[in-house]
């Protein structure tokens, strides 16, 4: 009699013990990858100049940067322009044309007052074209070839 009752009570306890259920929750991880910015450039060439001379290359006939990036996204353009090409070979009166299509004739003129600066802009086409010109002044410069880099750095805002 006692034995039977005990067995029955144990069974009752097992029947009512709660189970341990796993529960899960989820959330979405998200991110947006921007179009990689590419910049290619062609040289601003002054050609042959005399030892003492002033020569101006208009932006439309000067160097050109072709930039691809995400459309309609603000981007900062930092530029660094050389002040000279070498001893007695000075650069000045920088100017630039800006367009979202490859057409300097319909481009917007951008005055450049300093050799370093920053612009913030965007393009609806995902393309930018920048033409750059300047004035070169030689003052009894030594014979030879001269070159200096023009640097554009673009950063998404």
């Amino acid at each position, binding site marked *: 009699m006692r034995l039977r*009752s005990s067995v029955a009570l144990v069974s*009752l306890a097992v029947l*009512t013990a709660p189970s341990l259920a796993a*529960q899960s*929750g989820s*959330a979405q991880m*998200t991110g947006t*990858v*921007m179009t990689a910015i590419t910049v290619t450039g062609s040289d601003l060439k002054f050609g042959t100049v005399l030892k003492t001379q002033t020569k101006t290359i208009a932006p439309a006939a000067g160097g050109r940067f072709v930039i691809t990036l995400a459309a309609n996204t603000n981007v900062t353009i930092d530029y660094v322009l050389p002040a000279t090409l070498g001893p007695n070979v000075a650069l000045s009166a920088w100017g630039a044309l800006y367009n979202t299509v490859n057409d300097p004739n319909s481009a917007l003129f951008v005055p450049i007052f300093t050799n370093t600066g920053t612009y913030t802009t965007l393009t609806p086409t995902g393309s930018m074209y920048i033409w750059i010109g300047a004035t070169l002044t030689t003052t009894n410069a030594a014979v030879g070839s001269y070159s200096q880099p023009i640097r554009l750095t673009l950063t998404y805002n």
Partner: protein
Amino acid sequence: MRRPVLLVCFLAALAPPATAQTVQVNGVQGVVFGTMLPGAATVISRTNASAAARFDLRGTGRRTVNLTFTLPATMSGPSGATLPLSYAGGDAGYSSTQNIGNQVGFDPRTTFNVTLANNGRGSVFLGCTALPAANQRAGNYTATLTLTVVYFP
């Protein structure tokens, strides 16, 4: 002699059905990487309130629960593109006060036991790193992050 046995069996039949002890898991927010640049890793800290993933737990006070993340290795993007994800040892954190500024860090790649607060609540946070390739296809990427919680026996 048979009456007591019959009575006990009757009580067993009246006993309520077994119920599962569960803890609620609410995915409040996934990891938000925002805008990423090709070739540049984006690191999200578990203490970044606007970007770290957050799961809120609600269960029985002072109970120990076991946490297990199902971590996606990549996010899926446009035209089948994938973006690798990376997890480090301290990328996950738990706060019994549900305060992102007061976490105990742990490795999300392994299971981890924590104790719910007296009120049965707690929050789990996760950060990680996205590693877009230099030629990563532009566009939106997503992945599903899952946290599984069970009472520790």
